[in-house]
């Protein structure tokens, strides 16, 4: 008993000399952890989208066997989707503006950029939901309906997550949490990278589903 308590006391003495809490996590010398985190997350999401695109191309090329696509009577609102594409691409410009602003210590530009990005993203999502209401078919209508709602719905879910990240970043920006140094605005930089990824995926979804 005495040796055990002595050992604990000895260990505690060592701990208080060096640090408190658990030991530092291992860090790679080749990539910083924030970058590694967002890299792994985006790669996993690309694989998820890849599975949905594989399903789409299988249905269109193999299962459809040369029949018209979209099959009758399905019809897609290409013009509305095109306008939505312009809105989402614009939101990436405002996001980039927000980041450039904070790099130059322009807090007003940061706030305006983040609010604009959020509003444009919310508009995109609203138009998408309105399209679902008026498109005239549901996910249960044929394989085309399933894959259309699957792909666009998956992307819409990612937009929603991005809006949540933007909301947090916007609140923090208004509270003055960010600064011009790179390490002082990671809370905007990482959502910015994610938002651009969401935009890239929409370009691919729009081109594949609505145009080709």
């Amino acid at each position, binding site marked *: 008993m005495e040796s055990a308590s002595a050992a604990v006391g000895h260990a505690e003495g060592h701990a208080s000399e060096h640090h408190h809490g658990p030991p530092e996590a291992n860090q790679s*010398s*080749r*990539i*910083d952890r924030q*970058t590694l985190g*967002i*890299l792994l997350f*985006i790669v996993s999401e690309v694989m998820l989208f890849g599975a949905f695109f594989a399903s789409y191309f299988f249905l269109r090329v193999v299962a459809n066997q040369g029949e018209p696509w979209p099959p009758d009577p399905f019809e897609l609102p290409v013009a509305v989707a095109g306008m939505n594409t312009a809105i989402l*691409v614009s939101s*990436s410009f405002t*996001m*980039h503006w927000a*980041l*450039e602003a904070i790099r130059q210590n322009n807090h007003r530009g940061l706030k305006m950029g983040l609010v604009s990005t959020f509003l444009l993203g919310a508009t995109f999502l609203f138009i998408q939901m309105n399209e679902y209401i008026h498109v005239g078919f549901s996910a249960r209508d044929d394989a085309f309906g399933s894959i259309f709602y699957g792909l666009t719905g998956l992307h819409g879910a990612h937009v929603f997550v991005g809006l949540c990240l933007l909301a947090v970043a916007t609140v923090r920006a208004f509270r003055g949490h960010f600064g011009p140094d*790179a*390490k002082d605005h990671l809370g*905007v*930089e990482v959502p*910015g*990278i994610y938002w*651009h*990824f969401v*935009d*890239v995926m929409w*370009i*691919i979804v*729009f*081109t*594949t589903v609505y*145009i*080709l």
Partner: protein
Amino acid sequence: MSERPRNPFRSEGDAFRVLMMVVGAGAVVVALTLLTRPLVGAIAGAVLVGVGLWRAWGLLQTWRRAGSDPGER
């Protein structure tokens, strides 16, 4: 050492540049599809995807050799 390759997952600026390249590629595919037919657009899209993957592979090989510089920020 030569200039380190830019990583689109490291900075928002580089991710924005990748987005602009994808927007450009998408515009090419859309234009070809609308002006000709979907098969032409699909072939152009496949070629552009191939170019993108080839470029990404080259960058990955360079990163494996050069590593990632946390001080690049």
